[in-house]
Every structure is written in C-alpha cells, then in structure tokens.
C-alpha cells in the first residue's frame, strides 16, 4: 500500500496561494493538500478522521489572525486545533501530529521551509 502523506488543510485565500507560487513545486509532493474556502470550515472530526485513516499528521495552514477574509475563521480554527491536540493527548497520541501555522499568500518561502522540514524528517 502507498504510504499516506501528511494532510495539509489550506485556506484558499492564503496558504493555497502561497503553495501555488512556490518556486519549487515539487516540494508540494511532501503533503496532501486539501483546499478549504476558509479555515472556519475545518472540523475537529475531519482532522481526527485523517489520522484515523492513517495519515501520519495534519497541518492546518491558515492566514494570520485578523487577516481572514471571512473575519473569524482562523480564530475558530485555532480553538478547534487546540481541542484536537488535547483529545490526542488524552487518547495517548503525540499531540504534535497536528500542527497549525499562519501563512499569508506571500509567505511561499515560509511554506517551503515547513515542507522542507517535513521532507527532512521523513528522510
């Protein structure tokens, strides 16, 4: 069976744009990108489902706080990711399997750093 990748939930307005502008698009192969209209759509159940289905981790990549086109989406996402991590801790899993980061549409270089980090840790 093919090894599953880390799922990266990307907000269409920020991190997805950053991903499209990556100078080295091959880095994107390190993760499975799932585009969301806004991180406010992310659900605790969905993140847990990803882990349940065997993905090694979940990256939640949204825009910086107060930069959400939908105003409150990333604030809600922060809370939900917190809850997921708490649940993972309770279930005895490594909390760091779910990570959140804030990237604006201009932050391709920071996305590259994150993806390189993933590639390194996998190698």
């Amino acid at each position, binding site marked *: 069976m093919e090894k599953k990748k880390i799922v990266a939930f990307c907000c269409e307005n920020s991190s997805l744009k950053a991903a499209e502008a990556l100078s080295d698009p091959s880095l994107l192969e390190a993760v499975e990108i799932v585009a969301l209209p806004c991180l406010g759509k992310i*659900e*605790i*159940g969905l993140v*847990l*489902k990803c*882990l*349940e289905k065997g993905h090694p981790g979940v990256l939640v990549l949204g825009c910086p706080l107060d930069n959400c086109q939908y105003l409150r989406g990333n604030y809600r996402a922060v809370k939900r990711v917190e809850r997921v991590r708490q*649940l*993972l801790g*309770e*279930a*005895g*899993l490594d909390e760091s399997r779910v990570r959140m980061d804030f990237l604006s549409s201009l932050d391709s270089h920071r996305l590259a750093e994150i993806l390189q980090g993933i590639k390194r840790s996998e190698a």
Partner: protein
Amino acid sequence: MITAVQKPFEEIYRMVEASGKLLILGCGTCVTVCMAGGEKEVGILASTLRLACRERGSSLEIEEATIERQCDREFFDPVKAQVLGADAVLSMACGVGVQFCSELFEGKRVLPALNTRFYGTTVQQGLWSERCAGCGTCVLDRFGGVCPVARCAKSLLNGPCGGAQDGKCEVDKEIDCGWQLIYDRMSALGLLDSLMEIQPVKDWSTGRDGGPGRIRRQDVEL
C-alpha cells in the same frame, strides 16, 4: 434545556475498553444544543476512541448513530438493529436518555459518556449556567423571577446567608450571590417590601425528598 459535559476521556475509555462492539449513540436535543452529545461530538468521540484503541492495541469496533431524542421510545426505531448488534451502547444523552435506552433494550449494557449537570441556559456560546433545580414547587413569583432554590448555593428562602462579598457567593467567587440578584431585581421592581414576608418551610416532597417524580394527567392520557 438539560446541560451536560463529556466525562474525562480516560474514564470513558476504561468503561468501554472491553466492549468488543460499541455503538456510540448521540442525542439530537438538549445535549446537542449544549454541544456535548450531538452528532458532531459522537463523531469526535468515536474517532478519538478508535485512535486510542489503535495506539493501545485494543480491538474495539465502533459504530456511530444519533437520534432525535433518547427520552422517547419512538425515536429509537431506526437504530434498533444497531443497538441490538452492539455489545454495549455508549450513550451521549443526559442521564434520562442513558436510563431510558437501557430500559428499552433489556440485557444491553448502556454506558454514559456525559455527566449530566443542570437545567440551564446558554449565557453565550461556551458558557452555560443553571437556572432551575426542578424542585417541583415554583416560588419564582415571590422572588422577582430569580430562584433562591437554584441560584443560592444554600437554597435559602429567607434572605442571604451573610457570606456573600461584593455580590459574589462565598461558595464560589465566580458565581453571583443569588440573594443579591433577588434583592436587585426586587428593588428595581419596587417590591422590596414583600421580601420582608417570612417564607414558610418549603414542601420538598415534590423535589428530591419525595422520591422519583411522577406526573399523571388523565386529560391527556389516551
């Protein structure tokens, strides 16, 4: 609405660990509104349990279902087969639902996933507070619509205890002194005088002291 909160995960895990095949059953009414046992929480708990089982190497098969209300017989029809097929049911309803489910399915182990708390209101999303203790003999008319039974930590009917400070209860500095609220409300209504009346001893036979409550109304009986 009846409010409830989820039990600590470890407690739930130990409860269901040996169940084999488990049905997590959500309830679509009060506990959905207080975000403790609706369809979403069922999914979250199921996923967390599955991950925990995988991590700890136990084999637990988990199914999920949510019905409208677990306190009425008819709503159980669509999940009957699932309940019968499971070794145990983890009910995410209030205490009423857990018991009713267990009554309906004799011989089935029904476990509570929630701690049922109180009859309360949503102050704001994420904050619920108690308003009624279900004592069976309502006295709200005499206290300006603020219940001394539910909102005074000591359920005092004849004035405050003297332990309150700055309008906060001595039992917990976070909660308002019920009697302060009553006083403020009655003075706003211009009814302070009526608080001077001595309240007779309350009849608790309709409350916890009278044993399990029962209502019978022949006019609506079929």
